[in-house]
């Protein structure tokens, strides 16, 4: 009997998420199948997936999110590895530096990037100044600019997640692997990397979902290049087509769930443990 009391602890959280998340999401998704309050209708989905404009945006969004995730992992992993092996004092300092960018809003940061990578921005001026290029590079208002902005946004999260996982790896495991004959590379690939998989998955999901749904950065740095979130915004606020906006929202939720499931499956394959 008394055991049931422990469920009271999660009741507020469950209620909140049910009322403010599950129910609205459910209603949104259900409404997409009933455009005219009549019988269920999936023709809107069908026509959307034949629309090359939409498919191109879906593909761009996926590409931007996946590339952002990969770049965050590739840059974040060695950085986190370095930080995790520092002394406690140094580690605290480096972690504070890592999360420092999180204290400024994405809007401010996106505007800074406009100044840096714009036509007459810092990067182009510098590159032309030393004569590497003659014409300014078109970076701003391209998917590349969006990726740069998103990496800047999510790298701190990646690093923090990975440092947490790496710190929990006992140093004796690495010594043990070496004493059994593993080279530095072997220790890394056979022990460090597999044990970091949980961190890579959590970090990967955070970054992917974050960049897949990000609005400010693509809106400010992407220019005419739409992504799903900006397309959704355009449908809802500019075109006032709430039905189409709901369909886009439903698609984004499904894609997110598929990607999370795939990453979890991959993680279980790489790090069986249980």
């Amino acid at each position, binding site marked *: 009997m008394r055991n049931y009391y422990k469920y009271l602890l999660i009741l507020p959280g469950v209620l909140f998420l049910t009322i403010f998340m599950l129910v609205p999401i459910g209603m949104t998704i259900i409404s997409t199948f009933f455009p005219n309050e009549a019988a269920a209708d999936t023709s809107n989905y069908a026509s959307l997936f034949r629309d090359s404009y939409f498919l191109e945006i879906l593909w761009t969004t996926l590409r931007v999110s996946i590339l952002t995730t990969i770049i965050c992992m590739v840059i974040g992993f060695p950085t986190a590895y370095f930080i995790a092996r520092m002394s406690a004092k140094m580690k605290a300092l480096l972690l504070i530096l890592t999360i420092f960018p999180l204290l400024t809003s994405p809007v401010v940061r996106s505007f800074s990037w406009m100044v840096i990578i714009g036509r007459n921005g810092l990067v182009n001026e510098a590159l032309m100044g030393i004569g590497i290029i003659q014409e300014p590079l078109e970076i701003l208002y391209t998917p590349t600019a969006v990726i740069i902005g998103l990496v800047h946004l999510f790298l701190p999260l990646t690093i923090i997640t990975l440092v947490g996982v790496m710190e929990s790896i*006992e140093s004796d*495991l690495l010594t*043990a692997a070496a*004493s059994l*004959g593993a080279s530095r590379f072997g220790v890394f690939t056979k022990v460090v990397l597999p044990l970091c998989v949980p961190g890579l998955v959590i970090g990967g999901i955070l970054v992917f979902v974050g960049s897949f749904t990000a609005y400010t950065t693509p809106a400010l740095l992407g220019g005419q290049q739409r992504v799903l979130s900006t397309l959704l915004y355009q449908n809802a606020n500019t075109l006032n087509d709430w039905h189409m906006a709901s369909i886009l929202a439903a698609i984004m939720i499904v894609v997110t769930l598929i990607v999370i499931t795939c990453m979890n499956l991959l993680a279980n394959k790489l790090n*069986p*443990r249980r």
Partner: protein
Amino acid sequence: MSLFTLQDVTVAYQKQAILQDFNLSIGEGELVSLLGPSGCGKTTTLRLIAGFLQSKQGKFLFREKDYTKVPVNKRNFGFVFQNYALFPHMTVFDNVAFGLRQRKVSKASIKDRVLRVLDIASLKGFEERFPAALSGGQKQRVAIARALVIEPDLLLFDEPLSNLDANLRVNMRVEIRRIQQELGITTVYVSHDQEECFSISDKVAIMNKGIIEQLSDPATIYRQPKTKFVADFIGFKNFIQFDSRRQETDGIAATVQGITLTVQQQDNDTGLVGAIRPDDLRLYPLDAAPMTVENAVQGKVLISTYLGRSYQYEVKTSIGQFTVNDDAAAAPLANGQEVVLEIPKKQIVLVD
């Protein structure tokens, strides 16, 4: 012939020397324990041998070859960690096979050797388990199997039993000794548990503050400690600082504050400190002392404690305070009682 030698080795952490001009030499097939209190440098010595640490000075010779700069992964030594250090993401089989896979042994041969060593370690049937699903003793045996399977030239144990409960500890040390003798692998074993070291080892090195105070077989150390530290460490609770000693026909006459005690001559001991175990002293009430008491000293009981099998007394005498364990069957002595303390001449060991 010695298998390996540490020659004038110095190890320091942040300028503080842990080992200074340290020397150790171990013969083929021996099991040698490094025993000492925490911070005495025993684990440092072991990690140095394993190659986990670099020495600032000195040499490590293995089979007459200079191993000082040979990296850990090229040494072919098996190391058993205090916390086992099993790879949590691998099954028992994969943990044990790890070393063989690094050595590019063929698949069939890996399976063969892993299963054989798991059999030796009484771990048959556990191949597919993950470490999280093993008990402490099982993890320990996996750790040993993993170190053994590579057929190491040297086996190193770092307090392998300290995380196990008392019964298991006794069983495991018998197992370790059995496996070590069966395979004839030279072994260095670090522990702070005296009984464990004595029961398992061919030789014990008692370490203190980065030096070896004594390196002998367990029986010799037990009977013939060389220094006061060693004597104290292995249970000689009573020490008498003599002023002088001279050779007599019936032994050594050692004098302290005008009182002369006779000490039976041991092997060339030169020290001036007499060490005696509490168990070896006898106590008699002053009025009931027999006539033939060896090295009789008068004293007074300060504290008596009941230990179950015996009483422990603190006795104050003119040559210092003594701890005496006396048979509980005899009538207990009261606090403040005048007594005669007998210090049998055979039981006094003169140490440095």
